[in-house]
Every structure is written in C-alpha cells, then in structure tokens.
C-alpha cells in the first residue's frame, strides 16, 4: 500500500460506513448465496462499492481518486474480511498502486480513473517473498509494441478482472506488463478455490501482440516489493477482520448453547481456548495496526512490519477459525453455518502471496540485514 498524501479521513466514520453497507449487502445469507452460485464477483455489491468510493480511496486525486493511503485501505480490507465479501478489491487496488509507482502519465491517465471508478477490476501476478520467478516472457514486437508468451497462473481475482498486470521476464530483467483479457486470443480460465468467496485465474499467451505503452517503466523489482507489502497488509487486515468476526460468532454460541444443563461457555477447557484466542487477536491486531501506521507514514521498515503482520495475523486467523468450527460442534461443520466460510478464507489467506514460512524466512533475512 502506498503512503497517502492527504491528512486522511475520519477512520472510524469510514469503518462504520463500510460495515453498515456490508452488514446489509454482504450478509452471511447473501455471501452463502453467492458462493453457491459460483460467480466470479458480486456485481451489485461491486457497483455499490464503486459508487461509495471504496475503489477510489488510494488513487491520486488527479485521476479521480481520493488520494488516501494505507490507513483507509486497511479499514476497507478489514471490513471486507469481516463480511467475507466476494469482491476483487485487492487485485484492483494493486494495479492502482503499480500504476502510481511505475506508470507513466499516459498509462495512469488511461487506466487509473477507470479502476478508481470501478469500471475495471484488476488482478496482478501472484508474488511471494523471495521468489521472482515468472513463466511469462516478453519480447519486442511490431510498431514499438511487445509480444507475450507463456503462462500466468494463480492470479488472485484474475477471473473477475478486466485488466491484468503481469510480471514477465524480458531478457535478463523483469517487467510489469498490462494486458486486457478482452483482447482477441486471451482467455482467463477460472480456477476454483475451496474458498468460494474468491477465485484464481490462469491465462496462457501464445505470441500475443500488445501495442506500445503496455510496459510499466518503473523499476520492476521495487514495484514488486511494494505490491507484496500491499498484499501482505491487505491479507493481514482481511485476517484481522475475519478472525474477530468468527470469534464473536463463536463467543455468542458458547454463551447460548447448553449441554449437560448449562451453557457450554461455562466449561473451563473452552474458556481457556477463548482467552488464548483473545490474547492472540489483541497481539496480532496490534502488529497489523503498527504495520499499517508505518506504511502510512512512509517508515523505511514498513515492508518488514507488513510481512511480519501477514505471517502472524493469517496464522492467528487460521487458528481461531479452525477452533471456531470445533467449538460450534456439529452445527459448525454444516454447509449452512458460516464457520466453514471463515475457515476456508483463513486457510487461503495463509497461502496467498506466499505461505507463513516464506514470510517468516523473509522477515528473518530482513532482521539479519538490519542486525
């Protein structure tokens, strides 16, 4: 996530507003209906998110955005995670950030306003810490254009996207290239994940000719670092929101469900697990908030905090969601109950843009470099 260049907005008002809309428009019933219908994105909700300016938060004001930064974005991600909202916001915001960092004036003018307005949804290559391999190659094409060959797999929100930003090898170096799936010869295959609130996409290119102006000029490695930090904070925020939500549902259940003549929440073995979860939520939440604050203030160590927050928050989410199913007993294992939706989202979050081990390894390297 980029650092904002305004004074920010009332964060709690933003949170209340987003939550109110999602409580109504992304209720558990609506999310369940969406997942049963196998859609790629919730169109009415997407339109509403666009109208409300959620997708315009981080884009520059010159391109129809609000020019805000990580603090505001993190709140949206957290609330989307809380509601399990089936929206390709992350992919879209990543393309906005890449354009801001590496796009020239023409590219920004061409794409950023439409992304900020929700006319286009975006998706970017699946990056992971410490791994910059790509199966795409870029070579010079006709009329100053480029030619793209190879495969881009594991594109988060790829099936729902109108514009793809892909990392490709160009000679010895790396480049980010913008591709519209609507072009002739491009087909994005929908790849189903067990978490039905999100989809991956896969696309194959066979000497696809792209016109000039499709390659970002900024340093590809630096853009990749920034996108990875953005994705890490987004997933950490999603995890924070989801973990708190599923924990609250679980607490409510433990207070009301009776067995052996009393509420099961009165049993010490269950209480201690809840206390452990609460402490983990407070601790990981503090780290996520710190990472967001450092990103917003442009702190040089923000990237390391973002990666650490992703590792910790997604692991905590997975732990809380796993135990939520168990603590709900049989009902938590049913398709009707939302527990499994949180569990699946938590487990996917752990793996998106790299798994916990990759994050820990990268954080260790960064700590060692600073030691």
């Amino acid at each position, binding site marked *: 996530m980029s650092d904002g260049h305004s004074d920010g907005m009332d964060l709690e008002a933003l949170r209340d507003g987003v939550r109110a809309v999602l409580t109504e428009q992304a209720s558990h019933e609506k999310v369940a209906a969406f997942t049963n219908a196998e859609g790629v994105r919730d169109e009415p909700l997407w339109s509403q998110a666009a109208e409300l300016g959620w997708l315009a938060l981080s884009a520059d004001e010159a391109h129809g955005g609000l020019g805000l930064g990580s603090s505001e974005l993190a709140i949206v991600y957290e609330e989307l995670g809380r509601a399990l909202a089936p929206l390709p916001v992350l992919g879209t915001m990543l393309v906005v950030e890449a354009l801001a960092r590496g796009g020239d004036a023409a590219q920004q003018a061409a794409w950023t306003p439409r992304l900020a307005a929700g006319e286009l949804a975006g998706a970017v290559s699946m990056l992971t810490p410490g791994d910059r391999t790509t199966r795409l190659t870029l070579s010079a094409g006709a009329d100053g254009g480029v030619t793209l060959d190879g495969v881009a797999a594991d594109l988060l929100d790829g099936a729902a996207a109108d514009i793809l930003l892909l990392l490709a090898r160009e000679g010895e170096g790396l480049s980010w290239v913008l591709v519209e799936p609507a072009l002739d010869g491009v087909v994005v295959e929908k790849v189903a994940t067990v978490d039905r609130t999100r989809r991956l996409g896969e696309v194959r290119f066979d000497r696809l000719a792209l016109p000039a102006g499709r390659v970002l000029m900024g340093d590809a490695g630096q853009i990749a670092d920034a996108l990875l930090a953005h994705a890490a904070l987004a997933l950490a925020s999603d995890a924070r929101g989801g973990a708190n939500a599923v924990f609250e549902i679980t607490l409510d259940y433990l207070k009301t469900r009776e067995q052996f003549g009393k509420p099961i929440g*009165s049993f010490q073995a269950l209480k201690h697990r*809840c*206390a452990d979860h609460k402490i983990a939520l*407070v601790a990981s939440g503090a*780290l996520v908030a710190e990472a967001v604050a450092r990103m917003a203030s442009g702190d040089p160590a923000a990237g390391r905090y973002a990666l*650490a927050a992703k590792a*910790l928050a997604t692991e905590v989410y997975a732990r809380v969601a796993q135990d939520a199913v168990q603590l709900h007993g049989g009902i938590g294992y049913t398709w009707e109950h939302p527990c499994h939706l949180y569990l699946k989202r938590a487990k996917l979050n752990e793996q998106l843009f790299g798994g916990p081990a990759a994050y820990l390894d990268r*954080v*260790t390297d960064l700590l060692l470099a600073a030691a």
Partner: protein
Amino acid sequence: MSVQTATSPTTRRFDPLACKDDLDAFRAEVRAWLEAVVPADWHARMTGASEADYVAFQRWWFAEMGKVGLATPHWPRDWGGADIGIRHQVIIFEEIARAQAPNPDMFVISLYHLPATLFGNGSKAQRDRYLTGVKERGEVWCQGFSEPGSGSDLASLRTRAERKGDVYVINGQKVWSSYGAFADYCLLLARTDPTAPKKQAGISYFILNMKAPGVTVRPIRQATGQAEFCEIFLDNVEIPVADLIGEENAGWAIAQSTLSAERGLIIFELSERMARTLDADLAEAKRTDAAWLKDDEARRAFTRAYNDMVALRLMIRALMQEIETDPHMGSTTMPTYIKVHFSELLRRYTEFRLKLGGLAGQLRQPIVLGGGHQTGNVMHDFLLSYAWTISGGANEILKTMIAERALGLPR
C-alpha cells in the same frame, strides 16, 4: 564483591529531571548517567555472587538511582516523586534496557505495589511514613498475599487478624513472598471476619513490620537453586490499628489495585529488556555465523518469537497510552493480556535458547543475580520463566478471568 561505582572522582553531576521538559535532552542525560554509573563489568562481578553481595549490590544500585531522582520518578510529587509522565517512563526503561543496567528487583514491591496500594486507600500518615522510608532509606517491602493451600484461590486465605484494643493480633502463615528475607515491611492480607457470607468480604489489608515479635521468615529454595521466595510465619504478631490500610474488611478490593500494578508497568521494563535480548541474540548469531541461522525451523521459531515480542511492546504502548489518560487505573483487561502473552513468550523463547544451547546448556554454571531473563545461563533462564507463568495469578486463573470478565462467558 566490593560495592563501588565505575565513576571517576571528576565525574560531573547528573540531573535528568532538570531537563524533563525536553524529551531528547532527558534521554541524553539518562543515557550519559547510565554510561557513567553502571559498572561495565557488573555482570561478571555478580556471576556466582553470594546472597550478601547481591543484596549489597541491589542497595547500591537503588541508592544510585535515587541520587538522580530515577528511583521513584513515577511517584506523584506530593509523595516524593517527580510526577513525570509516561513518556519519560518509557525513555527511562528503554535506556536502562539499552545499558543493560541492573534490575532493582529487590525493590519491585517498594516501588510499584506499595504506592499503588496506598493511592486512594492509604492514610496521609501512612504515605508520609512509608513512601519516605522507601525513597530516603531504601526500605524493602515484600508481599504477604499467598498462603499454603490458598494458591491462586487467594480469597480462601486463612491467616487471622483479631482486633484487641489498639492492635490487631495476627496468626497464620504466608508463602511465596519474594525477597521476604530482606524485607523491612510486608503488604499483608489477613482475615478479619471469618463469618462474612462471601469470603472476599472478610479480608483486611495491613502493613506488617517484618521486625515485629512473632514474625519468622524461612527461605524456600526454588527450582533454580536460589531462594528468592520465603515463607513467613506469624505467631501472635501485633499490628497497630494505624497500620490498617483502608477500612476493615475492605482489603480485597485494595489488593486488586496492588495486583494490577504488577501486571502493567513492571512488564514494560521486562519487555524492553526482552527486546534487547532478542536483538542481541540475533546480532551475536550474525557475528558468529551461528549454525542455527541455517536451520529453517530455528530461524522461524526465532522470528515467530520476535514478532510476538514486537506485538508485546505494542500492547504495552497501548496500555501506556491508557495510563497516560488515567494514571492509576489504565485498562482493566490489557494488563492481563500482557502478562499472559509476555510469560508464555518468555517460556517459549527461553526454551528456544535452551535448545540451541545443546548439552552445554545443561551444565551447571554460576548465574548472574539481578540479571532478569538475560543472565546468559539458558537453563536458569528457562526455569525462571515459570516465575512468570505461575506467579501474579497463574495464567490459568487469568485466562478464566479473561473469559468471564472480558469475553462475558458464563461462570
């Protein structure tokens, strides 16, 4: 060990509190004072030190801190403190940790629990007499809460206090009193009304003079081999009525403020020291190209602990902000989260170091007294971590409290 400072006769006077209006200058002065006063070789000198040397060193360090106003800076001015804000407190702790200065752990009850207890409950005479005693004479306090058999069910305590004229007569036994063998006074809980319908309701809070007739102290040797804890036997000990804190039978609520002091500020200093320890361990591993840096499992265990340490410090900072708004209460739940998180992290991290220590870590070695959890003796530090998961309310008790009070789960 002879107690002497590292300062030369020409050393200038230090006065951090004089520059408290400028945080940077304040930090610089604290740092300069620490550089001048903390003996560079104190770790080595205290390694394997006798109990007498340890006590002498603690008293010397407390006196040095007092000379520059840094023993009781957090106390209100009316009580002999400097009334400094939480931001100054943060700086002092950070610099003490940075300098790896001694931990004045013999004075923990004197510095934190005593003022927290007397605040709002103690009489003016009590505050004048006993806070002055700590500040000017270095009086050591211990805590007489736990009893054999009461453990974490503190309210079940059985030590009796019976009023007879101008005194209360105390009979009973206390246990797990840290530094009880060196203490001048004790914060004592005793039962004044055995017939109270609720057992918490019949408890009173007293100041016990450890030199009073009928007080017998017996050290308990603990798993580390040290004898920090003591048993205290009370046989017809007379406590003047003037040394009752608050109202008779109202001791339970006062004890809660004593305990919350333990769960907040003290862990702040420990967390700063822990942060230094992890940073130092990593720097040392890098410098020596330690084998564990090539072991994925160990690297990840380290970084998990590191992330938890960062989270701990952030939680403590959040608590500090609450305390800044409400100096003597703070959050009702955050200190408990912090205590459990800190102690479990300490257990995990000391065990991590123990694993890295291999067989060498199992060999008996002299330890550094007063070194906190950075004694460098991995087995000792690991054993000592139990002091944090068990004392101050066992973590299991605190988790039940969190579940019931913070999460609203039914009793």
